[in-house]
């Protein structure tokens, strides 16, 4: 084996990839070749020397400085980050939003104006002001039920006047012989519907 090949084997050895056969051959060569032996030792020492210098540590505050150098979070990102951290809060908020939204639309559907009476021909409706008007000098025989509007009683009602989510205004010229009743269902209605929706979700 010549020295060139021996050198190759030396490097194989240092790579920790030398086969048994090659190692034996190398050993034999090194026994009688002073140059190669010297080279082998020198290479081993080189490796060891370089490896010994591996104690290098990052400066103190390095991490802090890296963090400080990060791009400032845009407001949108900060918001996104918060949302990611609190998924339940986000879900709950969405739930409340949707619930409220649906409540509002149901409210609007349910709360259309209604007027119930046997004698509608005697009663006026002012859609602009959302008022029901019993004109002065008119006489209504029977009950009047008004929903989601006010009623001005300027005339005479021989019966009960009921206003649901509205007010009854009795003029001096008017009269009501029966009961007058204002029912404010709004609060009760909201509570009722909340329960209704809750039972739909959690049967």
């Amino acid at each position, binding site marked *: 084996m010549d020295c060139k090949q021996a050198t190759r084997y030396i490097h194989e050895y240092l790579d920790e990839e030398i086969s048994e056969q090659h190692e034996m051959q190398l050993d034999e060569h090194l026994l009688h070749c002073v140059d190669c032996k010297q080279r082998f030792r*020198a290479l081993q020492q080189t490796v060891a020397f370089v490896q010994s210098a591996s104690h290098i540590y990052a400066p103190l505050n390095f991490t802090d400085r890296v963090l400080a150098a990060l791009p400032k979070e845009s407001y949108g990102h900060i918001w996104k980050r918060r949302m990611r951290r609190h998924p339940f809060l986000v879900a709950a908020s969405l739930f409340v939003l949707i619930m409220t939204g649906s409540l509002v639309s149901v409210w609007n559907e349910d709360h259309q104006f209604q007027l119930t009476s046997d004698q509608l021909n005697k009663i006026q409706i002012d859609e602009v002001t959302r008022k029901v008007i019993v004109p002065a000098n008119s006489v209504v025989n029977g009950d009047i039920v008004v929903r989601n509007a006010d009623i001005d009683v300027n005339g005479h009602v021989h019966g009960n006047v009921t206003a649901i989510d509205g007010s009854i205004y009795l003029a001096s010229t008017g009269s009501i012989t029966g009961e007058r009743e204002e029912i404010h269902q709004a609060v009760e209605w909201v509570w009722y519907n909340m329960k209704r929706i809750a039972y739909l979700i959690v049967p």
Partner: protein
Amino acid sequence: MNLHGRSKRGNHMGLIEENLIKKVKKGDRDAFAELVDLYKDKVYKVSYRMLGNQQEAEDVAQETFLRVYANIDSYDPSYKFSTWIYRIASNLSIDQLRKKKQIYSLDKQVEGTEGLEWHDRLSDPGQGPEDQLLTGELQGQVQEAINSLTPKYRSIMILRYLEDLSLSEISEVLKLPVSTIKTRIHRGRETLRKKLNFHS
């Protein structure tokens, strides 16, 4: 390909990293700080040995982590994180070395040289007196020897003998075939031997 990703050392390390990285991908900066702590010494070691002085090493090391943060979305978790970060660190270091070379080189032939040795016409801004004090005589000698290598060879010797990576790991970091890595290690060893001038 995934087999190369597994290291003999620290599979436990892999799990900690995995969790941290998942959080970082979601923008968790605290998790990122932990990741920096885990890797700062390794990264700094590479950049310091590549560049030979503390100031540049810090800049490059910091830039490495900033790149990690900026590109965390494109990091593929099926590969080792260390491979990726070593790659960024060595590439940035090599870029920095080449930048300096372009500015100061008096010999145009030296640019883009395939050669092994780094003939510094300019005095290496490296090893200032402070650096010697900090790192000690031993480190200074080793650094000098490493400085004599061109960037390509320097990075390989650093990864092999200072970071203790296997040949296949180095091959993954530098995206070069193992045979090329081997050849360069052999040549690198010979050059260092000559430079350090050991006699038995």
